[in-house]
């Protein structure tokens, strides 16, 4: 095995924690310049050149997604911020071509909004591709397969 399982898991947990705590600038710093943050719509495996995605962010658009929340003060979905906490588990790790480490994991994220009684639950399976970088990793690719991506859902403004 070309990867250190402990270090890979630590990265996934750190990514999750930064997103949960809405430390979005730190979260954004995890991503590499060629990143793709992808949340497919309707199905888990689609052709993004012919089918719609919920999120299909390159690095530039992801920067806007974060800045909208952290800098404008007018992203009403996150004014005030949701309270978030997620569990990440069932981690499987593989070697991936081009020297990347590929992981699959499950998550269960609970989102509480100040003006709602009931929480929103986001549940899905995530594929990460990590690029080794100075003893740590950069996030090159993250695909989130929400189990409700074909259901009538509310707005998604936290980072899944």
């Amino acid at each position, binding site marked *: 095995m070309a990867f250190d399982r402990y270090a890979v898991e630590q990265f996934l947990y750190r990514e999750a924690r930064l997103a949960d705590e809405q430390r979005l600038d730190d979260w954004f710093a995890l991503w590499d310049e060629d990143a793709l943050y992808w949340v497919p719509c309707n199905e888990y495996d689609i052709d993004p050149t012919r089918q719609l*995605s*919920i999120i299909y962010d390159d690095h530039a658009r992801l920067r806007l997604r974060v800045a*909208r929340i952290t800098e404008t003060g007018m992203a009403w*979905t996150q004014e005030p911020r949701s309270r978030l906490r997620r569990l990440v588990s069932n981690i499987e790790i593989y070697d991936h071509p081009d020297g990347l480490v590929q992981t699959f994991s499950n998550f269960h994220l609970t989102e509480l909004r100040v003006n709602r009684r009931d929480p929103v639950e986001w549940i899905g399976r995530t594929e990460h591709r990590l690029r080794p970088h100075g003893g740590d990793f950069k996030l090159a690719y993250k695909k989130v397969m929400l189990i409700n991506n074909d259901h009538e859902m*509310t*707005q998604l403004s936290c980072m899944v």
Partner: protein
Amino acid sequence: MDMATRSSLIDYAALVKPDRVHARVYTDPDIFEDELERIWYREWVFVGHESEVPNVGDYRTGHLGKQPILITRGRDMQVRVLLNRCTHRGNTLCQARSGNAPTFTCSYHGWTYSCEGDLQGVLFREDFPPDFRREDHGLYRVPRVEMYRGFIFASLAKTGKSLQEHLGPAAANIDRFCDLSPSGEITMNHGVYRMRIECNWKMWTENSVDSYHVYQTHGSNVYLANMFEAKADKPPPPPGKGYFGLIHARDLGNGHSDLDMRPQRRVTGMTYTGEWSGDIPESAQRAYLDGLEKLHGKAKAEQILTEGPAHTVIFPNLFNMLQEIRWCVPVSVNETYIYYAPCLFKGAPDEINIARLRRDEGAYGPAGFQLSDDIEVWARNYQGLQAREVEWILMNRGIHQPVGRDEDGIPYQSDLSELTMRSQWRHYLELMSSP
């Protein structure tokens, strides 16, 4: 209480005034039920697009008001809208969102129907009375189904005005949307955003032609545009309201309305292709233009590009804008499903269609930079109406100003007027007060 009795108890004229509406029209469950009868189960309602069922046996499930429907393509190539309800004991037949099936079999007792809705198979048929005829028990066919440029509308009323009469001048807006395709055809089978919003359906219909909300609800986008997308070679917008106020808010009749961008575009010089980013290669742009000119001729093609897509609400539930077809389905007085589907140009270079998808994703999904805030603001709109000591919702912006007539004779005001919403309410009052 039957519907006629219930309706006669509600004095709609006391709730819908020329310049305001009472909060009850959004919050009263009796009014919601009344609307199902008088609007959703009577008027023309948008249900889907022909391109969702291109082949024999294709189907898509959905709702007409609250009633479950099946849109199918029969062996005769006809598009039908059937009620997704077994005629035996009432179960829904088909559970999938969409697919292809020559027949539908009920999971309860096994009654089987063709994709045209005919009852084909009845298990142990000999135990039914001798006068039982399969022909009497086909799926309920929605009596009136008509298409315009592939947009499928259905009406549960057996008689009434034609779709063309219903659409009136709004049909030309659908033309502008489809004519941008180099084949003249768009396809709406590239996925759909399915969303649930915590408000009454009419708040969605109103908001779709509300130019005034853009400044504040979508303020984050204005901010981002200034922060990241300021282009040095572009002249700054006029001071004050910028380019807002140049758009015409038009009353298209029958509750339909639009935000007509053409007067604004005449000032800014913006065209449909001018909105493309540099990501679309020259060759693709050329191929697109060639296709458009071949279909329409050079002059008409130029007009189509200059005018761009329309921004239209067709009452009660269709909203057609930019690259999307959007529609709503009422769930209950305080819950609405909305569906936003990107439409691609049949026969256009891939790069252009990909750009349409990416544009949708940036702004209009549940995680889009605009729609996510709309969803939150609609919920706050509904939450606020629980403060029932304050009874009225204001609809009076611009009402003191003159109403103009544009070159097509269509009444309009500046887009910062609430004329579009007032035109919806005027039509609503007619529908809800008619016998």
